[in-house]
């Protein structure tokens, strides 16, 4: 059956009247999609990694601790991390794991030397390298067992400075809950190398049960409950929610509050990416505007004729808007086609920056980053890019469409005679 013209059909055909110009515009749109997806993917992956790594190097995406711990960290400031509270926290939709920790400062000493260090006391049955990255970075020996009251794991540089090796004794001294100095005897079960100079020179791992006993803590008493989320991007909202279930005197802080250096770095990187993307989109918009405007100006006479035979100005406006929409959709589809192979390669293999940076790891605000740069875009960011491309293209078409609708038929028809 013969079908009559619809605006979207006319617009589609109009788009291909100047095939070369349309192809050039579609190419610029596709390039814009590629740039935006790759930039955003690289940023999403690197910042997501940095935040996750920082969470796994410290006390989670959300940290439950005494309300005054952040301003004045002390082993005297604790929370009761009982099983009921942990279960309530773990039942939140975004929470993947809740782990009890005690962390603080101590002095480690051997027969040959002594050094100040930071310690993290953990339960080997509840923690693993997914929640605490250094557990996967033990390069000599192994992690102490849960019932090992004397086990201790030292950072590689600290062990070297102390002259400690696996099996050697280390005395650690700290201040207990009541402000008294207490000491414990440990025997080195493992040595870890994180790649972070600061961690390797000052990190000790201790069994949480032994530390509780040494510090005079109750059976569930901790300085932190480390909460790990399925997606770090919801940390702020999750912290707000979890803050409502913690006991009085405790607070739930997201990673940005616990690690403001990293939060500042992330903000600067995100802002920089947004400026670059806005600039790219602006350039694309200028190109699209030029195409649509030229296309309208070349057809003023035709628009006059359409008005003469009964097109309303509104219908002409919609015709040009349809042309913008088609241009956006074709550009977007082309963008997906050209971006997919590059994105998949960047996602799977990435770019190895080792030779440029001169090392295989770099520390950013406490997070040790890999030098292989990969791209993984969050689905909602991909949707935003798609909507931005379509939106910018449509906006670029508004003035040309308005111009088309403003045509005076008698003046337009005179053109070309």
């Amino acid at each position: 059956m013969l079908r009559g013209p619809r605006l979207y059909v006319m617009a589609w055909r109009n788009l291909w009247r100047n095939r070369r110009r349309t192809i050039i515009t579609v190419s610029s749109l596709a390039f814009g999609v590629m740039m935006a997806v790759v930039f955003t993917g690289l940023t999403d992956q690197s910042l997501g990694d940095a935040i996750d790594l920082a969470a796994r190097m410290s006390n989670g995406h959300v940290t439950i601790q005494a309300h005054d711990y952040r301003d004045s960290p002390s082993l005297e400031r604790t929370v009761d991390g009982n099983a009921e509270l942990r279960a309530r926290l773990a039942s939140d939709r975004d929470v993947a794991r809740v782990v009890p920790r005690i962390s603080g400062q101590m002095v480690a000493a051997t027969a040959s030397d002594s050094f100040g260090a930071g310690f993290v006391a953990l339960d080997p049955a509840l923690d693993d390298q997914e929640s605490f990255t250094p557990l996967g970075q033990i390069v000599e020996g192994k992690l102490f067992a849960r019932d090992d009251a004397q086990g201790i794991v030292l950072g590689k540089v600290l062990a070297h400075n102390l002259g400690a090796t696996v099996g050697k004794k280390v005395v650690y001294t700290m201040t207990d809950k009541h402000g008294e100095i207490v000491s414990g005897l440990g025997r080195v079960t493992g040595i870890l190398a994180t790649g972070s100079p600061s961690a390797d020179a000052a990190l000790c791992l201790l069994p949480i049960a032994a530390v509780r006993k040494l510090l005079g803590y109750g059976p569930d008493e901790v300085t932190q409950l480390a909460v790990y989320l399925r997606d770090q991007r919801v940390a702020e909202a999750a912290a707000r929610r979890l803050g409502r279930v913690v006991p009085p005197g405790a607070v739930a802080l997201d990673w940005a509050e616990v690690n403001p250096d990293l939060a500042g770095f992330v903000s600067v990187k995100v802002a920089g990416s947004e400026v670059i993307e806005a600039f790219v989109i602006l350039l694309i918009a200028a190109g699209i505007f030029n195409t649509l405007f030229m296309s309208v100006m070349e057809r003023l006479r035709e628009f006059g004729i359409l008005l003469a035979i009964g097109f309303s100005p509104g219908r002409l406006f919609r015709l040009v808007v349809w042309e913008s929409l088609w241009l956006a959709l074709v550009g977007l589809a082309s963008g997906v086609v050209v971006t997919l192979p590059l994105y998949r390669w960047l996602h799977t293999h990435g770019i190895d920056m080792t030779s440029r940076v001169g090392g295989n790891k770099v520390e950013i605000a406490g997070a040790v980053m890999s030098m292989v740069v990969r791209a993984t875009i969050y689905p909602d960011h991909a949707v935003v890019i798609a909507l931005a491309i379509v939106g910018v293209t449509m906006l670029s078409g508004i003035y040309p469409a308005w111009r088309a609708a403003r045509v005076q038929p008698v003046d337009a028809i005179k053109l070309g005679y």
Partner: protein
Amino acid sequence: MSDAVVVMEHVSKQYRQGATEVPALRDVSFTIERGEFAALCGPSGSGKTTALNLIGALDRPSSGIIRVEGRELGTLSRGELSVLRRDRIGFVFQAYNLVPVLTAYENAEIVLALQGAAAAARQKTVMHVLDEVGLGGMEQRRPDALSGGQQQRVAIARAVASQPAIILADEPTANVDSQTAEKLLDLMETLNRDKGATFLFSTHDPRVMARARRLLTMVDGRIAKDERRS
């Protein structure tokens, strides 16, 4: 009783060219009755096309009144004029002016589609009209695949398909050869005679003037002679 399709009463039109006003129409009055086959003729610049544009609601007069089927154009909004052009006026232009991205069928159908006619009714009407103008079998051709004469036939089909009150034809034979011009005139005469379509031409083509049953001769923006023929 009079059945006036177009009434022009003391219509004048001036165009501004820089600081000066150039009169294109001066106090023009005439009436076109339903079923007429009339032509505005005269030399270039005499005001023929201006008069056609004013009747077609493509332009507004500087003074005077124009009525199409009793509706005074000066009182209508831009949107109402658009609807009037769509529903009651057909246009045939010198340069055909088909929509290049539409097929012959779609060009002929476009006004009916704009009017919101049902698809089945549109198809029946358009196929019939294209057949009448001698373009049966060429429905799917785009304008660039049609000769000048064929394009003008599509333009005529577009103009008559919606059965407007009047068809305004501005130099419809100017861009075609003599033989094609005669065929086009035969076609328009047939539509006038058999379908009762009202035609008003703007022309200085002697072939059109010879066929017109009423000849309004314009000189310097005025009607110099109004001649009716049997």
